[in-house]
């Protein structure tokens, strides 16, 4: 199976995950809480894939998920690529076989993304306690879920790729 097909399968899996997460957010909307789980899509690209496939995959996912946001598409592209660079930089400093390491990197990057987006998109509300209460509440919940799921989602993707005859663990 060639590389393009493998990437296509990975992309489709992430697309399905995006659907599930969007449904979860739709269901949670009635409770006044929302989840931001972008790092689930990016952490595998940063920790396992080579530079070019990782970047293409991250940019593609950024385009796919960014069209639903009421902000310019380049904002999402930049956010995703910066998060990907962050996980790429962490790749040499952590053990990706370790649950805590992967969870820590994903949760920290997610937290930075949420705070960055709050300053970028909440410029009119940065002085409001209600706004920051919501942001920190969402961030805490999102970080918790990202921390729990990041490693498991990465391992699931690794297993799928191994079933397709390619060992991503062999990548440096």
């Amino acid at each position, binding site marked *: 199976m060639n590389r393009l097909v493998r990437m296509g399968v990975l992309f489709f899996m992430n697309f399905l995950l995006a*659907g599930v997460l*969007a*449904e979860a*957010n*739709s269901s949670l*909307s*009635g*409770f*006044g*809480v*929302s989840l*931001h789980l972008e790092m689930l899509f990016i952490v595998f690209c940063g920790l396992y894939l080579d*530079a*070019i496939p*990782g*970047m293409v995959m991250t*940019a593609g996912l950024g*385009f*796919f998920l*960014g*069209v*639903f*946001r*009421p*902000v*310019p*598409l*380049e904002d999402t*592209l*930049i956010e995703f*690529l*910066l998060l*990907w*660079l962050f996980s*790429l*930089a962490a790749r*040499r400093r952590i053990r990706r076989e370790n649950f805590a390491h992967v969870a820590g990197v994903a949760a920290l990057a997610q937290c930075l993304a949420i705070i960055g*987006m*709050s300053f970028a*998109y*909440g410029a*009119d*509300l940065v002085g*409001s306690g*209600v*706004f920051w*209460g*919501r*942001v920190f*509440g*969402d961030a805490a919940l999102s970080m918790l879920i990202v921390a729990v799921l990041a490693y498991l989602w990465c391992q699931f993707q690794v297993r799928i790729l191994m079933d397709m005859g390619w060992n991503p663990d062999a990548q*440096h």
Partner: protein
Amino acid sequence: MPRKLTFQGKAVLLTVLIIAVWWVAPVAIKKFTRISFFEFQAPSWVGLSYLKDVQDYWVNRSHSKSELIQAGIEMAELNAAYELRNQQAAFQESEVQRLEALLDMPSLPEHRYEVARVIRRDLNAWWQQIIVRKGTRHGVAQGQAVVFSGGVVGKVKEAHLYTAVVELLTSPGFRVAAHFEGDLRPIQFTGGYNPLFSTPHGVASNVPSDVHIPLREERRIVSSRLGGVFPDGLSLGRIKSLNLEPDGLFQNGKVAIDPRLLSLREVAILIPLGEDELAWEEPGR
């Protein structure tokens, strides 16, 4: 060490390159990319919402006959009440037309209601929007008003072929002209306060200083047709108290918004009637 630098340097270089390429790309290409990605995904969301409808159908099929009979009785009572109200509305409508003709006033804009299913909700601290299952094919266009049984929902922000994005009135930056029920002086409603695990609220500002709300009472604020988007009298929320603004000329207050807005399943889009549609609906006019 050099290998590490090369790998990470290559990644940074690629990132800068792709951002630069996207940055200098013509607006037409950016717009085309955005629309293409949206329309490509839209069928999957629409399909998912139809699946949910099927699920609801089978859940409803599981109700017992006695429950259905009870629901039928309640529906009949509601129908009777609405029929009476329709008769009153028809009489009031003819009265409005008579007065318009008498005073030589331009008639109020009229709309038809396009009911649309909500297929996705994206409500966070930065933006609040929903995606509905009706688009330009159904006459939906950017800027149209969206309502539900509890009042105003928001307005159409983007209209695609089969779907539309609706910005909710709880979205930061959402501003609309409003007035108190029974008091036509205009005020401004601003959305954007969405606390954690709680219902959202907005802010009413530019309220004249002589408006007073008694303790333990609340007043409803409704949409005003001054903004040109919403018809008059649709509920925006309720306000319990007012505070004097620093200039001393106006007051402002917190507006409690209907909590059902966060879990909407169906909305109605107000589509302005064209001349031909008006003539079709009212041949004698």
